[in-house]
């Protein structure tokens, strides 16, 4: 073969390598681009700002402003009142709404709004006696209109929204009653039912994920460090320790869904722990992340030069003292990095949580006391799975928004791990 042919072959080979890396990076860019473009609108929401003069005689029939008695008026009662108030506000702004049916007018505002107003009034009954302003969620379809998901054309075929409503929404926007702006509630409101995607938030999921990561941190890290120390420093070399080692490297490669099956039959069926509770999820994830953290901890213990230990032993320390006073502190940065990566893995894991019932629809926040870990909750990745499988495209947007939140957490944790490694890494 001529030299020229060989050299061009060399060029081609090198180019293939570069192309492979470019494809990999391109995939990454595509992934981020698709998530960001689909998810960023979730942080925006369309709101309707109304001035309320609530009819006290309808909402508090006995007239003594006692919240207990006022509870008798249900959200249905409030729905009527809110529609009336909307009409008043529209008239004041000089907007025409005669062409809209009563139902269309009512549906301009989210079905979540009556509950919101009712809650505010029960909290503070004096609202009935004065004029006040309140910002309510607009209907999900109207919100979708301002995000390009719904058009006047698509609205003609949609039973949930009509072009007339969108026309009115445009007028309201010009009058300053309606606006699309940042939606902080996405982070702390609980999930909402299928019909009101505009009210769905990540509150319960974030809290549940926080509990689970906390459980993993508290259980997996000490156990993993103890195991790693034992296997690296104290274990006698025999069949049994070989078995443990093979076992751990195998567990690290067991599919995560198998841990879900284990959790279902061990923690829920056998130990009778409650379904959907962070404690069960946390335990599953602990068992799942344990091998990862053990392997990382072992690697960093192994990386500590034997001379450190030998010096301690030479000065009369026992093996335990040498390990705990010298080897472990030197290995701590590596263990910390492994821990953070393990926690990130636990935070993003979905499959095992599906099996232990965390897909349930949960609207109540688990309590902040330690008992909270036994109360139903969801987790961030499961919540976004849950939204994905619902029909309404508004939920898909929210799922993509949840992915952004999840990725922000993941990237922060991974960056933290990299920074810590750089900062504390010691070359011996």
């Amino acid at each position: 073969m001529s030299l020229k042919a060989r050299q061009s072959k060399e060029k081609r080979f090198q180019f293939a390598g570069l192309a492979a890396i470019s494809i990999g990076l391109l995939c990454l860019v595509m992934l981020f681009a698709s998530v960001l473009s689909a998810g960023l609108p979730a942080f925006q929401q369309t709101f309707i700002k109304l001035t309320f003069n609530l009819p006290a005689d309808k909402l508090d029939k006995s007239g003594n402003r006692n919240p207990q008695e006022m509870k008798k008026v249900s959200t249905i009662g409030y729905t009527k009142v809110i529609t009336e108030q909307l009409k008043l506000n529209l008239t004041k702004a000089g907007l025409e709404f005669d062409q809209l049916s009563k139902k269309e007018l009512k549906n301009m505002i989210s079905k979540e709004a009556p509950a919101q107003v009712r809650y505010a009034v029960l909290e503070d009954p004096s609202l009935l006696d004065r004029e006040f302003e309140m910002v309510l969620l607009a209907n999900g379809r109207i919100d979708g209109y301002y995000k390009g998901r719904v058009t006047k054309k698509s609205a003609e075929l949609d039973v949930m929204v009509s072009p007339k409503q969108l026309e009115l929404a445009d007028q309201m926007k010009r009058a300053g009653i309606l606006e699309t702006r940042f939606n902080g509630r996405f982070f702390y409101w609980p999930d909402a039912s299928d019909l009101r995607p505009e009210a769905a938030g990540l509150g319960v999921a974030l809290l549940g994920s926080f509990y689970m990561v906390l459980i993993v941190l508290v259980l997996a890290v000490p156990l993993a460090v103890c195991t790693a120390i034992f296997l690296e420093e104290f274990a006698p070399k025999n069949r049994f320790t070989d078995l443990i080692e093979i076992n751990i490297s195998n567990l690290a490669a067991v599919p995560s869904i198998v841990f879900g099956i284990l959790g279902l039959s061990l923690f829920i069926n056998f130990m009778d722990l409650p379904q959907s509770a962070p404690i069960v999820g946390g335990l599953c994830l602990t068992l799942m992340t344990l091998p990862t953290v053990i392997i990382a901890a072992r690697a960093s213990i192994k990386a500590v030069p034997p001379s450190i230990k030998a010096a301690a032993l030479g000065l009369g320390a026992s093996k335990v003292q040498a390990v705990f006073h010298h080897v472990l502190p030197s290995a701590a940065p590596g263990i910390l990095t492994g821990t953070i990566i393990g926690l990130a893995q636990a935070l993003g894991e979905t499959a095992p949580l599906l099996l232990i019932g965390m897909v349930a629809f949960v609207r109540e926040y688990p309590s902040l006391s330690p008992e909270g870990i036994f109360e139903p909750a969801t987790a961030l990745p499961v919540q976004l799975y849950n939204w994905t499988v619902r029909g309404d495209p508004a939920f898909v947007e929210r799922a993509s928004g949840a992915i952004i939140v999840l990725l922000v957490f993941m990237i922060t944790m991974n960056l933290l791990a990299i920074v810590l490694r750089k900062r504390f890494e010691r070359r011996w």
Partner: protein
Amino acid sequence: MNSLIVFNLIVSVFAFFVCRAKASRLREKHTLLVASNTHWGWYGFLNVFIPTLVLGVLIHYVGIYFINSGIRSSTALEFASHAEYLLVKENVNASVILILDEISQIRFLSSFIVIISYLISGIEPALLAVQSGTTIEHLDLVVLALKTKIMALTATLVLGVVIALMQAQRSINTVSANYNAREKVEFVIISLLGLSSLIAVLTTVGIVISLLSETINFAMMHSIVDFLFGTVWNPQFTSGEVEGYGSDLGILPLLWGTLYISFVALAFSVPIGLYSAIYLSEYASDRFRSIAKPVLELLAGIPTIVYGLFALLTVGPLLRDSFTQPLGLGSNSDSVLAAGLVMGIMLIPFVSSLSDDIINAVPQTLRDGSYGLGATQSETVKNVIIPAALPGIIGAVLLAASRAIGETMIVVLGAGAAAKLSLNPLEGMATITAKIVNQLTGDTEFESPETLVAFALGLSLFVITLCLNVLALYIVRKYREEYE
């Protein structure tokens, strides 16, 4: 129980301080001690704490044993089934807890208060108080259980206190120059470390037991031959006329879907991952490497649910609009190709970082020899490095395959739900993992083969991935030893 633990902790802490103080006093008198003061402290602590803890747990379970056997023997003839016995047991336990709560509202001193109130007034007042609220079933059994419980409590308390004090006294007396307390304390520490390393083994045992036992249940309801060799997957959750036998639960279509998608994923990720690894380790400048490698590894840190959504929302529709529909092959956006490609993206960093390690492990001397003979860099890679690294690379591919087979979220969202034996990559196909999720989410009854089949699927998945992992780890390990 709890008040005993509190009491023991107090005695243990007391022993800790007294032993430590005594050791330090000895040291002040210029006695040379083998163990340090803190070791002596812990020696005292553990000497008290461990025996009393063991004793407490032991008596607690002996008490439960007596209560249970009492329940079983007193009404032995009346129980129609085991379930009935369990129900009675649960009722009795609930009543006992109710009564104990009535006696003592202070959790932390409960044992003391329960015993003292029993000595003073018996249990009748509490019984009456509870009874006024609700009716107590199996009154005689409840009384028996209560008495046994109180006896166990008394025994634990008396024995516990005696042993705690004795042990404290003994360990204080042992404080001396020559006794090596350090060794004893460290033995306990090492034992704890060893115990924690058993968790990993127990996890595996737990996985195997839970999968096996439910699979056996499944095998009793449904033919296992049907499961292993059946070519139709069609579970009927609305069990109609013939219960349980209406469903076809053959694993083969699922296995085919799993393998097909994994194959697509590997066909995409192995060349790209391998070429990236070769480029990064042989050609790239240090600067390029230090940026490209972590960025590529970012792909490995992304949760699989994100990939699943990527397959569902972006790749699937893209393939549909650019291939499937224009070519008239259907209108599915869920397809083997979409799920496989996205899974391939997920596996790129996995393959590339494993291959990178393996290529770097090939000794420099081999490269130098090849260059010395006049080979170009690419010829060296193709003719020397790859053959030398081949076993390791095969190991890496097997590990990637095991990942692909066990991957769940991408196939749940991207590959569709129809189980079929088909060659068309533009159709959707279900996998083992996707069906496990299907059968086990929502309201599940543990009595039907349609639910239990998930465990059989899980066992199959576990066995397949285990074999792949063991083989891969064996090859990788063997390979590493060769060059060390």
